[in-house]
């Protein structure tokens, strides 16, 4: 009994187990937390971070970095709204947004992989450029949506669960599968784990990286579209600072910044921890300034627990 408990706690899925325990505790202690309404609200609040984290996981696993995601989400949202308004067709608007997102992502990838410019600088640059484009396109003001059907993307429900949450779940499954079961996923881990060895083994390192960034752009676009629908407008100032939340969620979920290590379950836990923290702080009505401190402390405790766990395991 004792040893098997230990085994569960210290195993690969230990972070998940810790999370489940913490979740149970919070459910017991915080009033209004474990209600269907609050759970759905909670999940909706992590849709943007969660969707973008799927591909950020790949990005970090390949030892790369993407700071432009926030701008790209805002930009894609703007494009979706403006193109829908201009063409009168929501479908065209969505396609335009997806295309723009992917192009921005691929551009990042090409510059990083082919011109060998540092990913931090490149994506910092596109972060600025894309935000500038979003601001210029809209003259700095939010753009309203003409066709109210657009709102249905976020409002519609399936089996009582809003569409964005289904999209999130779908992407979690798809990218989880992609990471572990596909050539692309393994190549990603290999490129991050040892770029030199991957190159010598004939992995097309450049193309792998370009694809990762292109996918990153695509998920940003998906997130941007859902966000625009949710906030019923395209906002050039949306999602500022998103990059830090997403990267933190990934790192919290055990993705290594040194590349080569990532699990989807970890990232999901990371995303949920951050979402739950915000949710619970508001449920408990913690004053704004103290929220900063609580947020910081939770981050620390979460990684500390995970570290204790894995050093008890002697992994380090």
């Amino acid at each position, binding site marked *: 009994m004792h040893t098997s408990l230990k085994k569960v706690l210290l195993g690969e899925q230990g972070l998940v187990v810790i999370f489940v325990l913490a979740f149970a505790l919070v459910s017991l202690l915080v009033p*209004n937390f474990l*209600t269907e*309404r*609050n759970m*759905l*609200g909670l999940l*909706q*609040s992590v849709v*943007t971070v969660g969707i973008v984290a799927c591909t950020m996981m790949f990005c970090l696993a390949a030892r790369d970095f993407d700071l432009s995601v926030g701008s790209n989400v805002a930009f894609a949202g703007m494009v979706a709204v403006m193109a829908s308004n201009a063409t009168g067709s929501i479908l065209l608007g969505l396609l335009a947004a997806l295309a723009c997102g992917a192009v921005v992502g691929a551009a990042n990838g090409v510059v990083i992989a082919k011109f060998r410019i540092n990913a931090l600088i490149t994506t910092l640059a596109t972060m600025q450029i894309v935000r500038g484009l979003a*601001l210029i396109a809209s003259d*700095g*003001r*939010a*753009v*309203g*949506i*003409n066709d109210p059907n657009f*709102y249905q993307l976020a*409002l519609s429900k399936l089996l009582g669960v809003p569409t964005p949450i289904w999209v999130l779940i779908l992407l979690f499954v798809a990218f989880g599968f992609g990471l572990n079961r596909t050539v692309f996923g393994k190549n990603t881990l290999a490129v991050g784990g040892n770029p030199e060895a991957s190159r010598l083994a004939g992995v097309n390192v450049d193309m792998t990286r370009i694809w990762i960034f292109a996918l990153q752009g695509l998920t940003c676009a998906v997130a941007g579209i859902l*966000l625009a629908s*949710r*906030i*019923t*407008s395209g*906002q*050039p*100032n*949306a*999602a*500022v600072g998103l990059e830090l939340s997403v990267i933190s969620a990934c790192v919290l979920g055990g993705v290594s910044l040194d590349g080569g290590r990532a699990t989807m379950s970890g990232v999901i836990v990371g995303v949920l921890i951050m979402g739950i923290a*915000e*949710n619970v702080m*508001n*449920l408990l*009505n913690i*004053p*704004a*300034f103290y*929220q900063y401190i609580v947020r910081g402390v939770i981050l620390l405790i979460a990684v500390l627990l995970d570290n204790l766990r894995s050093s008890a395991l002697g992994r380090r």
Partner: protein
Amino acid sequence: ADVKIGFVVKQPEEPWFQDEWKFADQAAKEKGFTLVKIGAEDGEKLMSAIDNLGAQGVQGFVVCTPDVKLGPGIVAKAAANNLKLMTVDDRLVGADGKPLEDVPHMGISATKIGEAVGQAIVDEMKARGWNADEVGAIRVSYDQLPTAVDRVEGAISVLKKNGFKASNIFDAPQAKTDTEAALNAATVVLNAHPNIKKWVAFGLNDEAALGAVRASESVGIPATNMIGVGIGGADSAINEFKKPQPTGFVGSVIISPKRHGYETSLNMYGWIADNKEPEKLILTSGSLAKRDDYQKVRKDLGLE
């Protein structure tokens, strides 16, 4: 039943909103309702905040939205959660850009505040006997924020009406909304026009005007040749008035967080508890506070 009211603001770190919350708390204590305060810096956080309020069993909320275009979304979200909705400071607009008149609102138009700033500057120029042609104006701008644009444009319209040449108005775009960014942006303008000796400055808030005043000091422009007027009237401005020597920061247009915080939550309470629907539109006004009268102005606004 117990009354529970939400109060959501866009920038919880700003003193202005801290004050709004403080006065809302005062109302809560008087009437014995529970106040739930949430900060929501962008549209996504705001939507989550409304869900969160719903989950907590709140009956209605007051909001200062991060963006007025979020209007339809907020209305829909509030309805979905069965919450009564009032706005404060910034008024919601629809997709067509027209105000959503169904939502009760208390606030002040950004353009009007800007005009008050412009008027204050013009008055001070007159008092000092300046000739508009030899004066430069620093527009400390943060165009990313629509409210900020409206405010500075309000000020500029008054300046122009009083004989200011458009070519004497210089843009100092700040990269962030803090004093340091305004200071750096304004410094460039001052250094690019060393031949202009007298300056006026304005921006989105007190910090912006203060940055420009600091810039003038650092390049050696005496306080007598500088007129900065801010918006807000909170501690940054008061600190300036408390300095032993007068600085180029001449005044600040104070808007009253007391009315905005206290009255809105009181109205919301009335709506929930007594089913007394609030007025659709209440506009408050800004009052100019200067070094010699700021204490009085604040007292008049119920702030001391």
